[in-house]
């Protein structure tokens, strides 16, 4: 009976595609500068506090200058007017930017109730403080956050020292100098270079001093000791010891698992945890990452995207370490022919199990010798009770060079919509008209909490997939359940219980 109901619910799930008034310009020219294949993050957050999630898109710039020399390079803030209508508020908010930007990570770092924005770029990061009046203020210099000219592909806000305010982990890619970038070719034509042509770089950690300023603790925390080629990051309390840990997906070198010791330090335990590389031993082109609980066992699992023949490796958290579950869940077979960037765990059919959605495409240039096969579609994979993943009917979008992907409920109907960017193309919006009951839990603007709704667990994170973030209520599909017990676990606090919470509402949790 339940299976029939689930099938009926799933069959009813469908997507209504449209485009958004933002086009991602990469600055790709005849010479294939590596940054041109890398942009495409998205930030989803309610910047004006009107209850509707707004969208921010970082944009590229000219290359090799890395300057926004044309209005079309502008970063873009789209205010959600409701009913899937959006208004460009970039200029009014002063968010157009100046450099080549990749990622946007939103969070209320100063705990003033307004969601702020970190934009990660090729030569610099920019921290924008939301003043709460529709304006953002560039406070990078006064914040003390200095990425020292490194190429940042993302970051995550987390309270690593559990002192009550949000610290910042900055993800860095490779050491890049367009002047020394080699001219790479495939089949005689210019193509983006393999990452092996670039030296790895270290990531950075900044501790929030609580007064609007940050202290660089990269060295003393142990983060700076490890150089990688970071393309994705996720923070969660993976071992449930009360301190958030950090996973970094590296491009063709071993991934990092920074275990938080609880004493202001991290120890890198990628190999010991089983996350450094898949079972083959070949470090893949790891890209976007997401961490949530896909099998409803209360521990946060991991997935990251990679290129064709590398699969999208899925890891089940066993507490002490992680187990690759791509084979038993069939996800390996489904994703082996795919190349992906953004990826998110999201219950897209509200059946109580987090599905997966992926923004796909190759890393190669669409103008190169293999450009014809570089474009791919968006895909989603249905989670069948945490045991396996299946491929539902495809999402009706054209094959493009998709990059960022976020799942968020843009019209507050309880269904998670998808927002995706694609190189040299308008951003895509997929309205989800799913069935099934749901619950959203709006937490205080302080990531790190874990929430249980029935047998499902979710953790509040600022990152989503590739170069993206979502400061959004936690979403739970409830299937046919009309009530659910909710439990909120916040660092340093006793769990809060909300028994028999009614479905189909947003439960607002006060600080």
């Amino acid at each position: 009976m339940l299976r029939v109901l689930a099938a009926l619910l799933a069959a009813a799930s469908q997507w209504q595609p449209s485009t958004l008034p933002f086009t991602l310009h990469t600055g790709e020219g005849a010479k294939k500068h590596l940054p041109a294949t890398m942009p495409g993050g998205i930030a989803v957050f309610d910047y004006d506090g009107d209850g509707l999630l707004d969208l921010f898109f970082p944009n590229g710039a000219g290359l090799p200058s890395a300057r926004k020399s044309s209005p079309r390079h502008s970063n873009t803030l789209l205010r959600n007017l409701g009913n899937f209508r959006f208004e460009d508020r970039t200029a009014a908010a002063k968010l157009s930017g100046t450099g080549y930007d990749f990622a946007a990570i939103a969070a209320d770092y100063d705990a003033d109730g307004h969601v702020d924005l970190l934009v990660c770029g090729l030569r610099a990061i920019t921290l924008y403080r939301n003043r709460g009046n529709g304006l953002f203020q560039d406070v990078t210099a006064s914040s003390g956050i200095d990425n020292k000219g490194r190429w940042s592909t993302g970051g995550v806000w987390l309270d690593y020292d559990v002192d009550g305010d949000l610290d910042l982990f900055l993800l860095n890619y490779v050491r890049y100098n367009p002047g020394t970038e080699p001219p790479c070719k495939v089949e005689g034509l210019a193509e983006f270079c393999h990452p092996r042509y670039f030296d790895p770089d270290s990531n950075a950690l900044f501790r929030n001093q609580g007064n609007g300023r940050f202290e660089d603790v990269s060295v003393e925390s142990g983060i700076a000791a490890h150089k990688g080629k970071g393309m994705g990051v996720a923070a969660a309390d993976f071992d449930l010891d009360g301190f958030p840990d950090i996973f970094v997906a590296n491009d063709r070198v071993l991934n990092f698992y920074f275990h938080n010791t609880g004493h202001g330090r991290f120890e890198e335990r990628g190999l010991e945890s089983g996350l450094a590389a898949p079972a083959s031993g070949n470090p893949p082109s790891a890209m976007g990452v997401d961490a949530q609980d896909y099998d409803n066992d209360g521990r946060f699992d991991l997935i990251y995207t990679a290129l064709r023949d590398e699969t999208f490796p899925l890891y089940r958290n066993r507490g002490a370490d992680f187990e690759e579950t791509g084979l038993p869940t069939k996800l390996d077979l489904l994703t082996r022919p795919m190349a992906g960037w953004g990826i998110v765990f999201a219950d897209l059919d509200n059946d109580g199990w987090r599905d997966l959605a992926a923004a796909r495409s190759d890393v190669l240039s669409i103008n190169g010798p293999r450009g014809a096969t570089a474009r791919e579609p968006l895909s989603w994979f249905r989670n069948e009770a945490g045991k396996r993943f299946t491929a539902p009917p495809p999402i009706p979008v054209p094959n493009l060079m998709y990059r960022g992907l976020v799942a968020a409920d843009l019209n507050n109907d309880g269904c998670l919509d998808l927002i995706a960017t694609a190189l040299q193309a308008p951003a895509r919006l997929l309205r989800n008209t799913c069935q099934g009951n749901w619950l959203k839990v709006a937490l205080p603007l302080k990531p790190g909490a874990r929430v249980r709704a029935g047998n499902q667990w979710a953790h509040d994170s600022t990152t989503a997939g590739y170069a993206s973030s979502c400061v959004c209520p936690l979403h739970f599909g409830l299937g046919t359940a009309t009530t659910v017990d909710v439990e909120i676990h916040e660092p340093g606090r006793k769990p809060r219980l909300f028994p028999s919470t009614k479905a189909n509402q947003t439960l607002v949790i006060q600080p």
Partner: protein
Amino acid sequence: MTIFALGFTLLLAQDPAALSSQAAAAMRAQKFPEAESLYRKLTALQPANPMWRMNLGLALYSSGQYEKSIPEFELFHKSKPAPGPTHLILGTALLKLGKSCPAVTPLETAARWDMQRSTPPLADAYFGCKRYALAARAYEAAGPASARRAAHCYWQARQYPEARRIFETLEKSHPNDPEFHYEFGDTLARTAGPEAALPHLRQAVEANPELLPARGELGKALLATGDAPSAIPHLEAASAAGPTLLLPLSRAYRAAGRTADADRAQQQYRRHLSAK
């Protein structure tokens, strides 16, 4: 023989002046040095006539002077770029010289003139140029005799469903071919999972225990199916040539309770990856 026949066809088509008659006769008699000499005279007398270039190229090609024939065909094609048999001959000359990538363009042009005759050398050119996806399609189009090569190229191109489709048709004709079973097994591991791959990987290793990539794949498949003890000797052997296999070897040791060996292999793996 095909090239000779093409050459004679072309010779018959040209202006029968005295020298050219002698040259054509020399070609028919397979007196290629004499023909070469006559066509050199003709190119000197009438440098603007591209046909002498073409015939000189044919004479050079026919006497095995592939390197020298190439510029003559290229000059001819500047005047007569339309797809034709000389593109096939030029491409074949380049292939004979091991210049697979330069051979691609003339052979692609030739294929627009005669797909059937041009496809086999074009497939070879793609293969030599490591353009495996194109080579696979060309070999497949060339017919059943090239099916094994087509499957190999699909496998190289990581187009596993296509490779599997062809491997399945060839299974009975390659009972003891270790490379075949290795490639088929590897393909099945990626399209159907390790259980499906095991019989072929075992056959590959039984037929040739020195085929280390097959032993590596067999070790990984055994480990993935829960048989760590059986995986260990294969992963030990293969990791000598493929150090990334130290990671699955370490996991196999750990699963078999050999913790010290697991730690050692993991350290070696870390050192190897760090060195990269």
